[in-house]
């Protein structure tokens, strides 16, 4: 076989990889190569096959066809351990930590440090400490139970785990989805350090700005195939990337705001809300037709505020009123009856019924609308769900599929569809576009705006400052459990929000 020079210099090369699942061809022929010392970005819509591809590379899935070369030699990673031994380390999109084990046990899971069969726990703890410090997280103790950490911290632990492997190729599947801007900066610092040492990185993200900042070359996947590979990450035009990914041209991501009527009724009024722990003194008023955005760091208490408004956590102080009626504290039932809906932060543990069909996940909050005397009208449920999933472009189509088989971003759309279907007075959205691709994101913004225009009061929490500013009419900035700013979105810019968010934070 003739080997071209480009192929020789490649650390990893992939040719014609195909992976099928029952009913879906997730990868239908992927080609690309990764060179030592580069950051190679993978782009593609939700369900394009990015996560599946990295699972194949990391030995978690076996490809049905195709060739993978590692340092020029054809390899078959039968399982994650053999990939790990060759020097491939992966951070998966869906975290793969074992709750119940400590942080350091998780970091060294599968490659425990040992001498003559006895595990060296003190050493493991010391190294974990060093890795966490390197990631800028002195606040995570190696002895904590991983199950008790926040998602963001779990992501950090996953990264520490990947770093501990000391691999030649580091694969990261949407690592920034749950991180703060600050943490992303630290992550990029580490990536630069590693690439300078010759380590190659495969980086997946739906945020084009990140790809421009950290990436060297870009490969675009569409429907499980490579549509472009080796594009220069800094020079290639955004419109070109989006066109490659989606096959269409998108000019405006955020929908136009319609001015909020200052006389519109105040639908949601929150006064002096405190949970006695994470946040205190939160005041928040949302008028009909208004979208209010909550910006802040992960862990600043935004999600807790939403959950407390919704009654999923019990408030220690303060009142929540919907249409002038005070809600009973700590009662989700009361909130739902008053017309409130919450799209929770963690889709897997808080949002989805993974082993149920898509349509059942969508209608679970509005079942009574489809029922007569308690008997459900399946056909109507399917019809309504189909319409929604089509407008959100959930792929693959088909509302009878189990949610478990959908890609991360498509699962997110299913959770969102649930609340779009239910006719709410107040909609609380916690990270509604986490992991959602650019095209679908603008559909979601459009839908949120349309809901607001129909008189719904919307509260959006997002770690993406640009999103908060682009989508919301009014922005609240939350820092350490307190609202430190409240004003119209067009009177504040991204850097000011970041300043407010970070203020008093150690750099």
């Amino acid at each position: 076989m003739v080997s071209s020079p480009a192929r020789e210099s490649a650390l990893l090369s992939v040719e014609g990889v195909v992976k099928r699942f029952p009913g879906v061809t997730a990868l239908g022929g992927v080609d690309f190569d990764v060179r030592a010392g580069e950051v190679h970005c993978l782009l593609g819509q939700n369900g394009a096959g990015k996560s599946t591809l990295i699972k194949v590379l990391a030995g978690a899935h076996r490809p049905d066809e195709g060739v993978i070369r590692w340092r020029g030699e054809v390899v078959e990673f039968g399982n994650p351990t053999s990939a790990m031994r060759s020097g491939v380390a992966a951070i998966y999109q869906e975290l793969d930590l074992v709750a119940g084990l400590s942080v350091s046990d998780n970091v060294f899971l599968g490659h425990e440090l040992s001498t003559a069969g006895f595990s060296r726990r003190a050493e493991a703890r010391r190294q974990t400490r060093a890795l966490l410090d390197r990631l800028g997280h002195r606040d995570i103790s190696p002895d904590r139970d991983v199950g008790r950490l926040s998602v963001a911290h779990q992501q950090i632990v996953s990264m520490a785990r990947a770093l501990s492997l000391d691999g030649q190729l580091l694969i990261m599947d949407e690592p920034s989805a749950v991180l703060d801007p600050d943490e992303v900066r630290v992550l990029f610092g580490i990536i630069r350090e590693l690439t300078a040492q010759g380590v190659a990185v495969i980086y997946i993200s739906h945020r084009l700005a990140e790809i421009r900042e950290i990436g060297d070359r870009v490969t675009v996947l569409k429907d499980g195939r490579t549509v472009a590979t080796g594009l220069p990450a800094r020079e290639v035009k955004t419109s070109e990337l989006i066109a490659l990914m989606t096959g269409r041209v998108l000019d405006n991501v955020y929908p136009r705001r319609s001015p909020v009527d200052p006389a519109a009724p105040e639908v949601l009024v929150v006064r002096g809300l405190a949970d006695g722990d994470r946040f205190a003194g939160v005041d928040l008023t949302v008028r009909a037709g208004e979208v209010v955005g909550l910006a802040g760091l992960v862990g600043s208490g935004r999600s807790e505020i939403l959950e407390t408004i919704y009654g999923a956590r019990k408030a220690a102080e303060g009142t929540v009123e919907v249409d002038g009626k005070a809600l009973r504290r700590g009662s989700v039932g009361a909130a739902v009856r008053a017309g409130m809906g919450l799209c929770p932060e963690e889709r897997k543990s808080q949002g989805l019924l993974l082993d149920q069909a898509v349509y059942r996940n969508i209608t679970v909050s509005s079942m009574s609308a489809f029922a007569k005397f308690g008997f459900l009208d399946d056909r109507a449920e399917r019809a309504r769900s189909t319409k929604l999933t089509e407008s959100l472009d959930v792929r693959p189509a088909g509302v009878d599929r189990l949610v478990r088989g959908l890609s991360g971003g498509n699962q997110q759309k299913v959770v969102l569809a649930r609340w779009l279907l239910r006719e709410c007075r107040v909609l609380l959205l916690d990270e509604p576009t986490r992991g959602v691709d650019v095209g679908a994101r603008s559909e979601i913004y459009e839908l949120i705006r349309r809901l607001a225009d129909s008189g719904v009061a919307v509260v959006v929490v997002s770690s993406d400052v640009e999103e908060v500013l682009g989508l919301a009419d009014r922005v609240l900035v939350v820092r350490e459990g307190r609202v430190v700013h409240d004003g119209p979105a067009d009177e504040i810019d991204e850097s000011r929000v970041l300043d407010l968010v970070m203020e008093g934070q150690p750099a």
Partner: protein
Amino acid sequence: MSEDTALSAQKSAPVAKKESSVSALLGSAAGRNTGLVVALVLLCLGGVITAGDRFADVDNLLTILRLAAVIGVVSIGMTFVITGGGIDLSVGAIVALSSVWATTLATQGIANDTHWIVMVFTALLVGGACGLVNGALIAYGRVVAFIATLASLAAARGLAEIISNRKTQIVNVPGFAAFFDASVLGVPVLVVIFALVAAGGWVLLNRTTFGRRTFAVGGNPEAARLAGIDVRRHTVMLYSLLGLCCGLAAVMLIARTTTGSATHGGLYELDAIAAVVIGGTLLSGGRGTIAGTVFGVLIFTTLSNVFTLNNLSISAQAVAKGAIIVIAVLLQQRLARRSGA
């Protein structure tokens, strides 16, 4: 889950599948039931071969069905509780307590003075109340289901012994016996009741909001709660429903044995859970099938019958049951892993 799901997944599969057709078949809901049907047919063949006409006799088959009816009604209720993510160890004890309460001299006296239906209501009321207590303990008292129902098991059987003074109470209400001994078009009333309960259970689980909530609560209680389902109230309803089933089973048992006794319903909890699990309902909740449960019950009852006809001991039956349970659970785990991953 529903059959349509499996079918549509197969329809849209243009690519060649490498899996063996057997495991693909087992993967679909219809396929799982096929497996159970095959098992049942094999058992019956075994019965015919070893016991000949003594097995393949209308009277014998009706006996199997009448035996299956009582534990079957309990198992249908159990399917709901397990699908909803729970477990109930107290069903046998609840059956015993209900049977005793419904056959005390006092209850029988009232029944003879008024109508035999009084006994039925008494049993249903006692069973339902026990279920309510279980549910409340688990949902609002936050006691683990295993522990709460273990406690009920002990308490209910103890109470049954106290009430009956450990004596078997013979039923002497003519109307009661006449009604339940009758047949409808040759089918014993007990079997008709089981069929009705199974059909009602299927509709309730697959066609109503109650059933849909049961799947949601069992599949992911936190997501169900945040979706606006009152998980605790639903849990109480699930256990109460099972309690009612136990009450009904008690009535059927009284009719079959013409007695009420604190020893009724021994090991029903194991038989019911086993039938539910081999039927294909996931012990961890979120997936459940009524048809599977019905097959599970028939398989176990037929097995006992074949063994009894061949004069094999109860102990041998127990071993065979154990083996069947293990095989069923192994199969389930394979399926779970295939759909997971």
